[in-house]
């Protein structure tokens, strides 16, 4: 029998009965008696524990015994390397100093300024994913680096980041899945001074769009393929010189095709959207587009296509994370400076909790994205982490965008502050397929 617990139980029963008695209220004793109950129960616990246990030194210690620090085995460690941090910092300073100030105008104009795009191409983002053999800068697979760079660019502005990163998706795809002829034909252009505008087109405008079941069709006709269909929300399509287009290959499954924009049968229709406006999104209409048999990437393999979709989703997660970070960095000073009812609004719990939630969810988004990317670059299966990251970033990205607008109150709704734009952009992250790759 546990004597301690019995003593305590008896005491608490007594105290509860006393506390519940209406006479306490009647006599105005509630406050003081509550204090007495608190004190009594506190002492009661102390007495009960003291009665039940006695401590004695069972062993003599020369020094305190502590567990040694765990040595890193590489597992669970997502800390970016020094070089990755340098690359991220470089992209970030460009994004914050150059993209951010240009973003509002680009959003209104539905176009990114040409000189800014040139400047961004000069940064050489596309070269990270191209091997040194072909004039690039990469020596190993760099999904994680690309994630960090995409995140940093989106911290400036998601729409402009998409415009800047779109060509790199094509060079990354060529370097991952292109065969020797395809690489030799197209990659050198990306490493030159005047790198081409290019886009990876997967999205289609239809209900319940599934990237693994495309309406765009590719038929074998003799020695070539003929493409029919419409691709939606393709960034910078009007100026693109090269596309990688996803189409359902007859008798097989979805596959990627390299299509030069000068091929007859291709027309471009502007398709401005709610978000990503700076990326000048457009439809690419393919009508009897005849391309050579050599245009098929990865021999039409289902694994290649699935990997492309997953890597693209990770890239969108990175963009969402970057934009969500921009929201957080914008609202924190705002709520600390904005005074209402005589004090900064951050003193209100509803505001403070909202900020804390953004911080927590943002870190969750980032870690899942990094996990997926680090598995991808090590060549391990990353479908599950990529799917988890996609789900979380889609859901929480939109919530963070909306909360950002809400935290700014009336200011959130007007265009003077960038948060409404990020809210619109963040809706894209959960819906887009293709366009960017890591």
């Amino acid at each position, binding site marked *: 029998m546990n004597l301690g617990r019995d003593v305590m139980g008896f005491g608490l029963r007594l105290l509860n009965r006393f506390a519940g008695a209406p006479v306490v209220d009647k006599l105005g004793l509630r406050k003081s008696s509550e204090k007495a109950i608190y004190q009594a129960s506190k002492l009661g616990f102390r007495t009960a524990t003291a009665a039940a246990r006695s401590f004695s030194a069972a062993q003599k210690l020369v020094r305190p015994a502590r567990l040694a620090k765990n040595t890193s085995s590489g597992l669970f460690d997502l800390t970016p390397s*020094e*070089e990755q941090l*340098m*690359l991220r*910092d*470089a*992209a970030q*300073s*460009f994004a914050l100093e*150059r993209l951010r100030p240009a973003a509002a105008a680009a959003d209104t104009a539905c176009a990114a300024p040409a000189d800014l795009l040139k*400047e961004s191409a*000069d*940064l*050489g*983002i596309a*070269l*990270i994913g191209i091997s040194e053999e072909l004039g*690039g*800068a*990469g*020596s190993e697979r760099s999904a994680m680096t690309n994630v960090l*760079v995409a995140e940093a660019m989106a911290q400036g502005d998601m729409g402009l980041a998409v415009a800047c990163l779109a060509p790199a998706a094509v060079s990354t795809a060529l370097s991952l899945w292109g065969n020797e002829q395809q690489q030799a034909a197209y990659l050198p252009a990306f490493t030159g001074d005047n790198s081409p505008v290019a886009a990876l087109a997967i999205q289609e405008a239809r209900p319940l769009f599934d990237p693994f079941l495309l309406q765009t069709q590719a038929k074998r006709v003799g020695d070539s393929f003929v493409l029919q269909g419409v691709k939606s929300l393709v960034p910078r399509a009007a100026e693109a010189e090269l596309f990688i287009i996803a189409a359902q290959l007859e008798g097989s499954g979805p596959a990627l095709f390299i299509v030069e924009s000068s091929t007859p049968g291709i027309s471009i229709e502007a398709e401005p959207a709610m978000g990503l406006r700076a990326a000048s999104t457009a439809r690419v209409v393919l009508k009897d587009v005849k391309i050579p048999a050599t245009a098929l990437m990865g021999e039409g393999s289902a694994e290649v296509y699935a990997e492309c979709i997953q890597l693209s989703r990770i890239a969108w997660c990175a963009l969402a994370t970057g934009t969500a970070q921009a929201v957080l960095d914008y609202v924190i000073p705002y709520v600390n400076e904005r005074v209402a009812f005589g004090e900064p609004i951050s003193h209100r719990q509803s505001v403070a909790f909202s900020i804390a939630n953004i911080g927590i969810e943002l870190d969750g988004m980032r870690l899942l994205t990094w996990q997926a990317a680090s598995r991808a670059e090590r060549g391990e299966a990353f479908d599950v982490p990529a799917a988890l990251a996609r789900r979380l970033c889609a859901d929480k990205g939109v919530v963070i965008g909306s909360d950002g607008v809400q935290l700014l109150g009336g200011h959130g709704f007007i265009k003077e502050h960038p948060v409404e734009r990020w809210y619109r952009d963040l809706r894209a992250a959960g819906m887009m397929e293709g366009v960017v790759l890591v």
Partner: protein
Amino acid sequence: MKVLVSVKRVVDYNVRIQIKPDGSGVVTDGVKHSMNPFDEIAMEEAVRLKEKGKVTEIIAVTLGGAKGEETLRTALAFGADRAIHVKEEGEIQPLTAARALAAIFKKEGAQILFTGKQAIDDDANQTAQMTAALLDLPQATFASKVELDGTKAQVTREIDAGLETLEVDLPAVISADLRLNEPRYLKLPDIMKAKKKTIEAVSFADLGVEAAASLKTIKTTPPPTRSKGVMVKTVDELVSALKAKGLV
């Protein structure tokens, strides 16, 4: 022409500085560091001169702990050809730094030492001047424009009264002011290629430099918080308030 550029690793200018509770200095653990912004400007100037064909080799130098290597990598990504890391984990006073830079300058046979006018951590603004004195070379500090002409350099300096143009014989020491140039954005491939360039590690002993101990930090304290101002509605009110304080 060989130029030496000294770069220092400092707490990033965006970081809000915090004082250690015991007043022995500022908190640097877990704080973002970057290259001293004035040194970036000095680095950029050297690279521009190299692009113009006036400079053949750029050597970046840093003094400090192991992490200083990151700063040297940044310098190499900017366009330095190689780097020298004077390793010293402890405190380095301006005179010590000047002695080390002078030793390297002599050893390398450089023509110009470019530095930032000061580092944004201790704001000493002494190293360039001391190095010039130790080497007995001309110095042109706070440069806002540098033009090289054979064995001479024309340096425009920002001074209180406006601009002053100096002509110095080379070799010389030049320190960069804020408006000398706007440093470029680092190209990502250059950052990746930087790891292939060499960083030579040396110690004060290798250079035959004795650490100076002429300065002692007694205490570091945060600046006093600014007290709240007073709002006045009219000029008369302002004048009478100033009079009341005995200021007019």
